[in-house]
């Protein structure tokens, strides 16, 4: 896998993980282009598209798009599986995850991803093992500044979309 992007339906980037060394400029360009391309696709279209010399695999969960770039020989279906597995991990960790969890705890989202994928390859296929590793690492954290689940009311517009569980739609 070359990179993974999470972005909202409004085109806001929520998480990015690059497994290939690229300059910031290049990253921004790719992100902009891909977000546009993926958002322009109709809802009933398949999850794959050919883009430059890469294959893009994306899936939408509630208001959030998960988008991965893989190489020509890579398996699209297993990439979809990876995306799904990551969403499941987030869901287990946050407990019925929604976009707001990822926005406000974005470092946690990264930590989970890093336990699941390393250098673009799946390092642990067992969900249980990933969660165990994360929990134990969290225990080491001193001030368990545990995330206050935020009240949607104070967060302004669009919150209802962002606070809907990723697995609900």
């Amino acid at each position, binding site marked *: 896998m070359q990179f993974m992007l999470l972005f909202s339906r409004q085109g806001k980037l929520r998480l990015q993980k690059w497994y290939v060394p690229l300059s*910031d400029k290049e990253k921004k360009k790719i992100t902009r282009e891909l977000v546009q391309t993926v958002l322009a696709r109709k809802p009933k279209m398949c999850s794959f598209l050919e883009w430059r010399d890469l294959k893009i695999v994306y899936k939408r969960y509630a208001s959030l798009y998960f988008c991965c770039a893989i190489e020509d020989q890579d398996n699209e279906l297993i990439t979809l599986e990876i995306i799904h597995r990551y969403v499941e991990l987030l869901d287990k960790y946050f407990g019925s995850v929604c976009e707001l969890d990822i926005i406000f705890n974005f470092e946690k989202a990264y930590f989970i991803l890093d336990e699941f994928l390393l250098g673009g390859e799946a390092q642990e296929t067992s969900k249980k093992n990933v969660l165990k590793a994360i929990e134990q690492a969290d225990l080491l954290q001193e001030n368990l500044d545990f995330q206050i689940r935020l009240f949607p009311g104070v967060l302004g517009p669009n919150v209802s979309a962002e606070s809907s569980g990723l697995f609900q739609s």
Partner: protein
Amino acid sequence: MALKIVKGSIDRMFDKNLQDLVRGIRNHKEDEAKYISTCIDEIKQELKQDNIAVKANAVCKLTYLQMLGYDVSWAAFNIVEVMSSSKFTYKRIGYLAASQCFHEGTDVIMLTTNQIRKDLSSPNQYDTGVALTGLSCFVTPDLARDLANDIMTLMSHTKPYIRKKAVLIMYKVFLKYPESLRPAFPRLKEKLEDPDPGVQSAAVNVICELARRNPKNYLSLAPLFFKLMTSSTNNWVLIKIIKLFGALTPLEPRLGKKLIEPLTNLIHSTSAMSLLYECVNTVIAVLISLSSGMPNHSASIQLCVQKLRILIEDSDQNLKYLGLLAMSKILKTHPKSVQSHKDLILQCLDDKDESIRLRALDLLYGMVSKKNLMEIVKKLMLHVDKAEGTTYRDELQHTCNTKLCNCSTLILLRYISILVELTRLEGTRHGHLIASQMLDVAIRVKAIRAFAVAQMAMLLDNAHLLTGNMQRNGICEVLYAAAWICGEFSEHLEDPNQTLEAMLRPKVATLPGHIQAVYVQNAAKLFATVLRKHEGATDSQAAQETSQLLVERLPLFVQSANLEVQERASCILQLVKYIQKLQQKDVEVAEEVSALFAGELNPVAPKAQKKVPVPEGLDLDAWINEPPSESESEDEKPKAVFAKEETKHSRPRHTEVDEKELARRREARKQEQANNPFYIKSSPSSQKVYQDAPGVEHIPVVQIDLSVPLKVPGMPMSDQYLKLEEERRQKEKAEKKKKEKKKKREKHGKGKKHDSGPESEEDITPAHHVDIVTEEMPENALPSDDDDKDPNDPHKVYDIQGNLQDGSQVVVSVIFENKSDSFLKSMEFNVLDSLNSKLQRPEGAGPHDGLVVPFQLPPGVSNEARFIFSVQSIVMPQKLKGTLTFIVKSEDSSTHEKLDFKLHFTCTSYLITTPCYSDAYAKLLESGDLKSSSLRLEGVNMPFHHLLARICFHHHFSVVERIDSCASMYSRSIQGHHVCLLVKTADQTVSIDAKCDEPSLLGNVLDEIKQTFSQC
């Protein structure tokens, strides 16, 4: 007090953690940038604190801002500080920030080496874990080199958690520091049999990725992987192993044979679609690489196709898409197996997902055969009508155009109507393609001409529908084909009168120039047909009405800004006026008029011209014809109008040739014009039509272009007018040469007396009249019968033309003509090379050796030899001195003689007439890479279009655009320099602004242009 304030603000700063920042940004939607810049200022303050917790908090916020697109590279050192914290909480944040923000160019990375090494060997496995994770993102070649050993040690760590991370990161290390692969490989291989499945899977991952880059080093692992494949139940691992085998099989066919069975077993048994898909793909790859020697592989293919069918039938769009994708791979080697699922694929054309429709179309494109063509075409036509989405529609039309042809007559009938239907769709970009296909089919297949002509006549009649929107004028290219087909095969027209009327509507003048030109030319052809029809029915009234129609409508075209249209229209207008005069005297003219266009156009095989043997004594380089002299009046014969423009340039030199002979030759030339398929396609843009069309090799008329023996390639050969100009120029040149030589000969005291009166060159028509139907190769050519030479002139002539070939090789063809009464033999041609231009001599020959001319010359005979020169720089004109030595053999004696000559390579001769569209031209000028220069010519007294023609003919330019007395012109050198001219004229003064990427080339070309005009 002050301390209190400071402390308070510190507290506040510390209070703003990541969540506060995120919330703050969300509450400042209106002035986000301003809010963030104050936040960054705060963060800068926080980073100055000694408290590591404050710093970590700041770095965490920066990581978030980095994702939003803000530059945080200035904080790289602070990130390193946080990474080095002894507390896991902060270390974790530091490494996360580093993995997001660092890249190979970050210079502080080299400061991290020792810190990372320390973390790697930390007793806490999570410290080691975050270090490995971070490193996987920002590893540089230096880090890889310095830390390779540490990571290798970790591959044998007691904790599987560390082992698997270490194994995975080794792949990144190998990429950055390949030297580490050799020492690490034995341990990596060991990990394939690690007791922990996670570590094992990581090792499979790494080896699979390595093998994809360089399969042959991993062949030896095949047995081990084979064992793993049959024992493993983890689909993730299986997919990787199967992928690895896919990379290995092309190197080892035996492996492929062995794989088929377990793979087919997996295909049968697995319920995981991802694994199934991987297996199918690998089986296809294996079968492709085996290609032969597998007797029972059809069963495997059948299985794959069956499984893919299930995928395609699935309601899941993703599976459908992948199924079609894999199907197209099978199609390449086993088209029959796929064709049997045509129904399913046709169904996919109805899918609501455009990407699936495109895939299906792609597949259909490859599936078409004679048998299923009709059905597929029918289905596609239904789709063209309702197709949504421009990409899809263009793709659809492209498929229709390019693939669905070349079959039987019946199909072609259908094909023509398809093409016609396609034109009805607005907004296609494939006008060129459709036009060339129409021409191709109509020219090649006699049986369908009548049908094609009827369809084309309809098109012409409804032309206003096509041209309604000039923005999308791609489709009006079709009219080019329609007009030509109707004109050329006008005998099939039901109502030529109506078509003629349609072709002369005022609206036609809005079409692009090259199409108008075809309209005008073919209107003349139609006119001939109509006349004959009316005279056959002795309906002189109707015939006169038709002439009147032309006389009324043609002046519109005479005013055209397009040179080509103008010229043709004025020729034809004069012709029609003359005919009208004859008609009023009740003279029957139809026969004569149709003689102008007599002869049938036949397709010629691409290599036909090459196969025609040059008959003995035929000199392909002699001129075809003398230019007619001014003394002939225009209306002397109706056919003379074709030479009208020509007469203005020619000089009355050839009075000795009797008028009858001249008339006969003119007749022959006009015949040829009518037959010459290029004649209608002379404008630069129309040539482009063919260059664009992919099926160019199917269009025989273009091919002949290469082998017509007039050796100035790149010139639009089709243009007879150009050709004559060129011939005239050559003649002048030859004449000059002749005079030089005469002088020399006289010095040698060898020359006989010659009369200074006018001379005639030989008059041989070239072997153009190749008569071929359906692309057979010609057995012979028809040489012209007149071969008369002027016996009075004892001198030899040669004519040198630069013939430009690819790169910087220049072929010079030299015509040797023996004008003496003696036999010439043992001719040797030698040139004194310059640093820049060298005669190419055979291998082994010295740099001063002459080249033997491969023929002897009996008295009065001429022949041509070609010599290749390599030219380094083309920006300067060149003069090369040379000598020809030969033996003169008369009845009683033989003497050795020599003749000196000079070869003049002008800069112009390095230019190739290259058509250029005005938008491409504008882009070129805008690019700013070109240097400019200019030229003024005073006292040029000629019409502007003659001036342009002159520049085109003498200097190989093409007109890009002409507006009133201003024209842009373009040419390209053999080394790819662009030369652009802007020519303006006012009161006998011509100003030329020129641009070229090579200033000295430009200067020389301009000098040469100046010279051309000073001579006239």
